[in-house]
């Protein structure tokens, strides 16, 4: 049995639509217009024990909502989910003792107190035995290099140090499942790297299951072997990181090094020129026509060196997002005649 199982999970909620203008506000006093927002539209997913899975997607894609559903913070409007055999939104204490949620944009430590006081509170709330508590705390703060900051009020810590404290707080009760919502948001490169390393080590060492959302491709590339791309509340891709390129990018990037400066003329016949710095040129070539094109180029030009690469991951994902956006935008427009893809009064699929 998988440790996390989602089946047709969906979430929609209503927001009050504020009208522009005074008269409309007055009308709002008596009759309100609501808009249904479909944050998650039927997600099926299985995650095995010990996996480190990344959720990728543009803002508002439903990543955070999915994590909140799995944490039981909110209830779904349809579908099912099991995490370690529990239904999250029943919020059983037995379940809540076994997972943790870290949100990069919110903090749960007491602002004016040293972090160790918040940790002690967690000890009481999660009923952690004193020796185990001390051991886990020292181990975590040691790994993250924040042992000397425990006595400083949280408000005096830097953003990176605070995030490390948040992580420590979340891991004090040694959860089996960890949900991370943008844990490195706003951090500098050094702190990002440090947290990545920590997560990687901790996950491999403890074999816990982690779901991560992040905007930083570096996080994902460093940590996760499996990637789930969510857009508009649906899963668009589920597989390995490199697989994204295979399934969403139909071309390769060919770098040619010519013998002379003049020889790149006429290359546009073979593909789109990305870069032209004689004696070097970069070319996007259809994957299916790769061998044929290469042979033709080598036959016609004096080429000293050839490198064939996949296009950069960021680029592929960015274009994937825009593509998904455009598709569902057109779909919604066709369905309801409005230009906002989110706003439709239709029920959840």
């Amino acid at each position, binding site marked *: 049995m998988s440790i996390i199982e989602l089946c047709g999970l969906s979430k929609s909620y209503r927001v009050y639509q*504020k009208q522009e*203008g*005074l008269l409309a*506000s*007055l009308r*709002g*006093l*008596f009759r309100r217009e609501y808009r249904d927002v479909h944050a998650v539209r039927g997600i099926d997913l299985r995650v095995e024990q010990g996996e480190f899975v990344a959720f990728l997607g543009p803002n508002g894609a439903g990543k955070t909502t999915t994590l909140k559903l799995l944490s039981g913070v909110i209830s779904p409007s349809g579908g099912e989910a099991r995490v370690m055999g529990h239904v999250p939104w029943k919020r059983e204490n037995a379940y809540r003792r076994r997972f943790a949620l870290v949100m990069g944009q919110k903090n749960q430590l007491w602002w004016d107190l040293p972090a160790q006081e918040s940790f002690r509170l967690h000890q009481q709330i999660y009923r952690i035995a004193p020796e185990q508590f001390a051991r886990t705390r020292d181990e975590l703060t040691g790994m993250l290099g924040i042992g000397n900051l425990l006595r400083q009020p949280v408000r005096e810590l830097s953003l990176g140090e605070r995030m490390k404290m948040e992580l420590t707080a979340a891991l004090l009760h040694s959860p089996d499942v960890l949900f991370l919502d943008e844990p490195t948001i706003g951090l500098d490169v050094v702190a990002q790297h440090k947290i990545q390393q920590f997560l990687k080590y901790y996950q491999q060492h403890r074999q816990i299951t982690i779901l991560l959302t992040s905007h930083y491709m570096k996080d994902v590339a460093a940590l996760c072997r499996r990637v789930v791309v969510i857009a508009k509340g649906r899963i668009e891709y589920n597989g390995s990181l490199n697989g994204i390129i295979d399934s969403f990018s139909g071309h390769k990037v060919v770098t040619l090094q010519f013998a002379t400066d003049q020889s790149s003329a006429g290359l546009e016949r073979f593909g789109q020129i990305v870069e032209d710095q004689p004696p070097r040129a970069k070319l996007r070539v259809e994957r299916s026509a790769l061998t044929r094109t290469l042979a033709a180029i080598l036959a016609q030009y004096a080429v000293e060196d050839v490198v064939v690469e996949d296009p950069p991951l960021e680029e592929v994902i960015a274009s994937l997002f825009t593509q998904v956006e455009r598709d569902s935008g057109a779909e919604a427009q066709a369905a309801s005649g409005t230009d906002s893809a989110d706003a439709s009064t239709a029920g959840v699929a």
Partner: protein
Amino acid sequence: MSARIATWWTILRICLEERLVYRGDFALGTLMRFLPIVTQIFLWYAIFEARGSSALAGYSYEEFVAYYLLTMVSRAFSSMPGLASGITRQIRDGEIKKYLIQPVDMLGFLFLSRFAHKIAYYSVAIGPFALVFFLCRGYFHNLPAEAATHSPATAAAFAASLVMSFVLGFYLEASLGLIGFWWLEVSSLLFVYMLFNFFLSGHMFPLDMLPQPWRAIFDAIPLKYLAYYPAAVFLGKVKHADLAIDLCVQFAWVVFFIGLSRFMFQRGLKRYSGFGG
């Protein structure tokens, strides 16, 4: 000038809209404001009952109730919720910088937006106010000849003192808020002011009840104009001969606090820009 009117109109409209979006709050808030009066009415009824029916500090029971209702009116003009704390927050957060850069006068802008807020408030609150005064009209029947219900001169003085209580309330609180230029944590000071305001403006009881020398002391400080004075004028507690002088004194206080706040603002800004923000 027309640009200024356009700004003014925009502020007014935004204030109104803001009030109307939160219907639950809005409906409850306006109604609830009258609840404390109900307990006061019962309290004073019980007190008058225990005393027999003689007048207390020159007030009959009916006049007591009328007094409380009228202080509600003067407080509706003079109270400036969040003004002083807002100014100190702007100073602390550095938001005040924009008044150094933009061609906007801070006190003028705040006065204008407060004025708009009040208009927005009255335009909605006039309903409940009218209803309560209509229901309680019986308490206004046996007022003396010098009360505003009989004498146009008193009514005019009442109106004048109300308008001045708005301006006084604004500049008094603004001056308090501007202390934030020199003293970062003004909240405790504001609490003390609120305390004084609550007990000494006449909001809780007519100041006539106080024994000497307290009576004379509280008569001399400007807080009484925020609640007690307009109500006392309306009820004819102030002799016609004294009216003109009293209003002049109130006007002098208004001028004083306008001057004080302007002065503080200039000095404060100078100090602030001297520090380099």
